[in-house]
């Protein structure tokens, strides 16, 4: 685990640079993570991030399919917002754990 400081906030990251404590998240943290992924956050991005955080709090396992049915974006739109690995990138930017795929 590493500690980094973003603006005035000190946060804890795991080895894949996901927040280890999702309560340390705020919009500044999101913006910083997004920058690392080469993404500039828009309002639409934040709608998705808030959806993910809400589902995470409810203890729901999140899948790309669920985001596609959220009414916020379809799957195509989700890929456009967070290219290549939308669920992994958006989860990291939302400050929630890396999604696990159960097989």
């Amino acid at each position, binding site marked *: 685990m590493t500690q980094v400081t973003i603006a005035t906030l000190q946060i804890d990251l795991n080895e894949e640079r996901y927040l280890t404590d999702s309560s340390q998240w705020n919009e500044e943290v999101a913006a910083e993570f997004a920058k690392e992924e080469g993404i500039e956050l828009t309002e639409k991005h934040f709608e998705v991030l808030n959806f993910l955080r809400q589902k995470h709090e409810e203890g729901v396992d999140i899948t790309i*399919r669920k985001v596609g049915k959220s009414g916020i974006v379809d*799957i195509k739109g989700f*890929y456009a917002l967070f290219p290549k690995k939308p669920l992994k990138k958006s989860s990291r930017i939302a400050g929630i754990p890396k999604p696990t*795929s159960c097989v």
Partner: protein
Amino acid sequence: MKRLLILGGGTAGTIMANKMRKDLSRDEWDITIVDQYKTHYYQPGFLFIPFGMYKKQDVVKPKGDFFPTGTKVIYSKIDRIEGEKNQVLLDNGVAVKYDYLIIATGAKIAPEETPGLKENLWHKSIYDFYTIEGATALSSYFKTWKGGHLVINIAELPYKCPVAPLEFAFFADAFFTERGMRDKVKITYTTPLSGAFTKPRASQMLGGLMDEKNIEVIPEFYVERIDNEKKEIISYGDEAIPFDCLVSIPTNMGDSMIERSGLAEDLNFVATDKNTLQSKAFDNVFVIGDATNLPTSKAGSVAHFEADVLHENLIAAIEGRPFTASFDGHANCYIETGFGKGTLIDFNYDTEPLPGSFPFPGLGPFGLLKESRMNHYGKLLFRWIYWHILIKGREMPISSQMTMAGKKF
């Protein structure tokens, strides 16, 4: 008379019928099974059919042969479960009452979920091997195929028998090598996962085998549609891969009856307590096998381990005691790696597949996460065990709980 109703007479439903019939007195308990089909398929055998190793007759038997005496069987489609009324409506409107209900209606492929998948090229140059029709059609196609680009695609998670697509790739490599045409066949494996498999150590081991066998793995590939004209598979990330033969593992879904009953989670799987196997909606409704939404493999081994837990918990519920058994997500999968060898993985909710020996620590005879001839024989032997021991609900020398004994970590 009290009534136990089992929906689905596949692997899980048949095991449960056999276990419960032994324990519940025939004077006090009716056991009824409802299933729309009369044929029991040995689904693990489908994988062998495209490569001519098994034929259709090797994987089919009448379902009725495996139901215990003293069970009623209704061959009918199901309209819906009415949980509040403790009854199930059949397709013809007849209501079947129950005191306890077991949902074991499984999962099936839903190719219509991916645009272009089940269109002009379906079973012409696009195949599945999760149905008897797909597996036998692919067998005929491979007999005369001249070679080209063979693309394997997993549409999305979860899907039945998570290792089967890997085994398919390994078998294809061996099959075309043995036919002296491996140089004419390019094999590409496209998957929404981040590697060959999900669990880190198994993914590394199996990914290594893919490299050795010259099978290209394209991870993070989430299929959006198939272009039938150009013969391309296109991802949401706008990657287009041309194919000559596409072998698809389509989206898997639970039965549409689950949705009509208002019990559906995503993809028509039933919300189920991952430890007790009780449904989240009704206390007297239990769920087993591929029909659940549990975060473990959809596989026969899982259904078999779950059956031990459900058996114990259902008896506890009937006798008015608290649940005593807890399912740990145990899965155990033989993986064919081609050329007469195989490997084996054993894992649960919390423990990823680890190397070691199975089932006897240090002795085996099966090796975990390593390739051996013995593992391959284990898989072949398993078909006999399946028909004669497993679905009849007889004891097996393997614990339903995963054990760390014999594992190296």
